[in-house]
């Protein structure tokens, strides 16, 4: 199981990769992340995420410790969704999917393992769920939306071109 915060969830929905990722990974989000990512259903990504929740391809988990949530928010200057995802991943000792720099800093402090949207793209490509051309096209879209630094994009292109980890 992987816990997602809104940043990675929305990025993957925007580039149309969420469906194929949900087929290979068990996705869980907090109630707070659900609210953040589906609050404007006129947005394409919000509708996709909402549908995945409705059909239980994305599991929504309720947090019990609100005091700890507020403390994480304060300590790491995070929004409610980010702090809730971090707390869930920490409590369940699982990987957190986040594309937020501030949340990644908090992961390092708390010893939570993390991945970003590009890792999922590489993952589905390695599993041959998408071909090389599609992987490169999705990466191009992700480059702009995720605003990754050039070194990250260049490494991901090399990995896709080589076709191995």
């Amino acid at each position: 199981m992987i816990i997602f915060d809104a940043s990675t969830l929305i990025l993957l929905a925007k580039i149309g990769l969420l469906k194929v990722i949900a087929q290979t990974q068990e996705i869980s989000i907090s109630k707070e992340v659900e609210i953040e990512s589906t609050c404007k259903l006129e947005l394409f990504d919000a509708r996709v995420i909402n549908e995945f929740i409705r059909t239980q391809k994305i599991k929504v988990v309720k947090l019990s410790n609100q005091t700890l949530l507020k403390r994480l928010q304060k300590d790491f200057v995070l929004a409610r969704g980010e702090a809730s995802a971090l707390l869930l991943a920490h409590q369940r000792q699982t990987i957190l999917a986040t594309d937020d720099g501030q949340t990644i800093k908090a992961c390092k402090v708390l010893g939570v393992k993390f991945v970003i949207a590009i890792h999922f793209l590489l993952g589905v490509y390695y599993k041959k769920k998408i071909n090389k051309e599609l992987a490169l096209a999705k990466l191009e879209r992700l480059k702009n939306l995720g605003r990754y630094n050039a070194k990250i994009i260049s490494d991901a292109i090399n990995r896709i071109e080589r076709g191995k980890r």
Partner: protein
Amino acid sequence: MNVLSVRLDEEELRHIKALAKKEETGQSQIARELINEGWKFYLLRMYKEGKLSLGSLAKELNMTISSAIDFLEKLGIPAPLEYEDYLEGLGLLK
């Protein structure tokens, strides 16, 4: 609306007057707009420097996270993610 008296230097006042003339609106309106734009710029700088999370940025800008991502893309503001962060995550997904 609240009232705040602010001392401005010559250049600041010149900017307000010039913009008010260009936009054909009042100086108070232009001053308010510049304060709002300045606030946005400040928040974006904080985000870019890794001092503000994406969710907090979106909240302060009164946007959804999705719209904030689109806004950052439009402005070309890089995500505060390091190459090392990316390397750390490689191989974690089964």
